[in-house]
């Protein structure tokens, strides 16, 4: 995060105005309550307040490096106690040096300056607390705003994926061919036709309802993939071979809903649709406490696939991962002569 005061002139001017007000009050008090002349009053308030306003800008750094969420209370207090003592110490020492040498002739003022140290210490700590409170508020506000924009971006993307997933179901490849298979099955095997209708309905229902909740379990995602693959298996018979290596422990892990579907559809499209022989899809999962990893491998013939780069499916998944987790390293593609592997990683403790 950029320095909240220095990042634009508007903030800097606001900050300086606050100090100008404090300085004016300071001058006013010295003149009316302590009866000092204008020179002394102006010098003292300028010296101390300019010094603290400069220190105040520097105080951002202990705040920045003492994240409220990542530090425990003891850490937090120690860090700020050290930083505030240093700041207040420097402030008083330099201020005192300047003023005592400026007005060494006025014994009365020097006496007052010496006596004022205890309450100045108190004032310094008060300034410090006020300044860090403001900084933390600003950080909090900025994080909140970031979160809002991230969420709205995510919503837009999910909507897009909802739409494209809807499209892929309405596309001739899948929906109409499935319906044609069902039409054919009604004549030879009504039970199988019924199975397929139910499967197709469940698949459509899940796909249409899913995106409303952002995260879902691997178990639910895999169940839906299973429905889709069962339908394709009825269409393509032995041409489609699916091998699943699922670690039972991973089933409860979380991932964004419908994120595997476009990858599986691609695997079927480039594997089975384009091949006359048997084509395999291997789905495997690995997981630890922090991470779920899903790998989807399909056979493909590089001669028949255009090299125009990744399609909409992969792009969409990649940007969803980026927005959901704020990381760019979660999607990886490995291509060999006849295997295409997509590896997706999903952080778990958020």
């Amino acid at each position, binding site marked *: 995060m950029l320095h909240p005061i220095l990042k634009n002139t508007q903030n800097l001017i606001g900050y300086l105005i606050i100090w100008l007000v404090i300085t004016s009050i300071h001058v006013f008090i010295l003149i009316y309550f302590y009866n000092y002349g204008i020179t002394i009053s102006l010098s003292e308030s300028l010296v101390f307040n300019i010094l603290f306003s400069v220190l105040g800008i520097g105080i951002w750094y202990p705040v920045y490096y003492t994240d409220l969420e990542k530090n425990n209370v003891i850490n937090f207090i120690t860090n700020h106690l050290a930083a505030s003592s240093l700041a207040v110490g420097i402030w008083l020492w330099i201020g005192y040096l300047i003023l005592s040498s400026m007005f060494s002739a006025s014994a009365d003022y020097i006496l007052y300056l010496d006596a004022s140290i205890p309450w100045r210490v108190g004032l310094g700590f008060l300034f410090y607390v006020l300044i860090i409170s403001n900084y933390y508020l600003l950080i909090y506000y900025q994080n909140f705003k970031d979160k809002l924009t991230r969420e709205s971006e995510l919503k837009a993307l999910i909507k897009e994926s909802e739409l494209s997933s809807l499209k892929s179901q309405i596309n001739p490849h899948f929906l109409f061919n499935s319906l044609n298979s069902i039409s054919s099955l009604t004549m030879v095997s009504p039970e199988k036709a019924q199975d397929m209708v139910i499967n197709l309905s469940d698949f459509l229902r899940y796909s249409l309802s899913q995106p409303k909740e952002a995260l879902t379990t691997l178990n639910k995602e895999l169940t839906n993939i299973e429905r889709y693959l069962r339908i394709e298996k009825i*269409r393509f018979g032995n041409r489609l071979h699916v091998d699943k290596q699922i670690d039972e422990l991973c089933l409860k892990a979380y991932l964004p809903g419908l994120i595997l579907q476009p990858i599986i559809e691609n695997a079927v499209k480039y594997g089975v649709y384009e091949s006359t022989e048997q084509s395999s899809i291997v789905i495997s999962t690995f997981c630890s406490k922090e991470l779920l990893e899903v790998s989807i491998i399909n056979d493909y013939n590089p001669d028949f696939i255009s090299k125009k780069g990744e399609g909409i499916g992969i792009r969409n998944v990649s940007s969803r991962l980026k927005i959901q987790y704020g990381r760019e390293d979660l999607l990886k593609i490995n291509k060999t002569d006849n295997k295409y592997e997509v590896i997706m990683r999903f952080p778990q403790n958020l």
Partner: protein
Amino acid sequence: MKKIKAIIVEDEELGRLLIRNYLKDENEIEIISECENGFEGIKAIQELKPDLVFLDIQMPKLNGFEMLEILDDRPEIIFTTAFNQYAIQAFELNAIDYLLKPFSKERLFEALNKAIKRIKAHEPINKNIEKLTQHPIDEVIERIVVKSNSKISVIPVEKIRYIEAQDDYVMIYTSEGKHLKQATMKYYEQHLDSNQFMRVHRSYIIRFDQVVQLEPYGKDSYIAKLKDGPTVPISKSGFKNLKEKLNF
């Protein structure tokens, strides 16, 4: 009366089964073969000479249109497909009908009756190659199907080095050899990726990354030296376009 001989070319078993079941009690037609892909389809059509083909469009390796493109002697066609965007091209190919999946038995018989009428009348099929616009005008093709002797090859466009016009044909030069195909330069000018290919001369389309050197050749014309030796003439306007594209 002689039965109409038909074959089904369709990659999904249930799709074939559906047509077979619909036609089970129909006496005027006999299914003499079923094919799972375009290659099998070509073989069956050449060997069995059917009167009618039920043809799917989306199939692995060789799609329905590509299959027709290399047949010299084409039977009557009824397309069966889930795509509706190919209907215009299908009718330009003078297909009898275009059935959208899933289709009813009545719809199939409607198509079949048209076929029976046409076959009995011995109407000649229009095989004009100019009409073979299998792709929408702005669609970029990714492969070209060619036939040399009896061998059918599918060439990914990435392997094409340049294309030369030869009367009613074009010669396609690839990294592995050359193939003659009945097609027009205009067709390839429109359907090859313009980020990779350019028509640089009335008779030549080249792939940019093949160009090694450009030299002036007479007044207002140039020649391009390509990788591994061949040279290709370039017209004045071709040179101008090529210069822009290659940035020099």
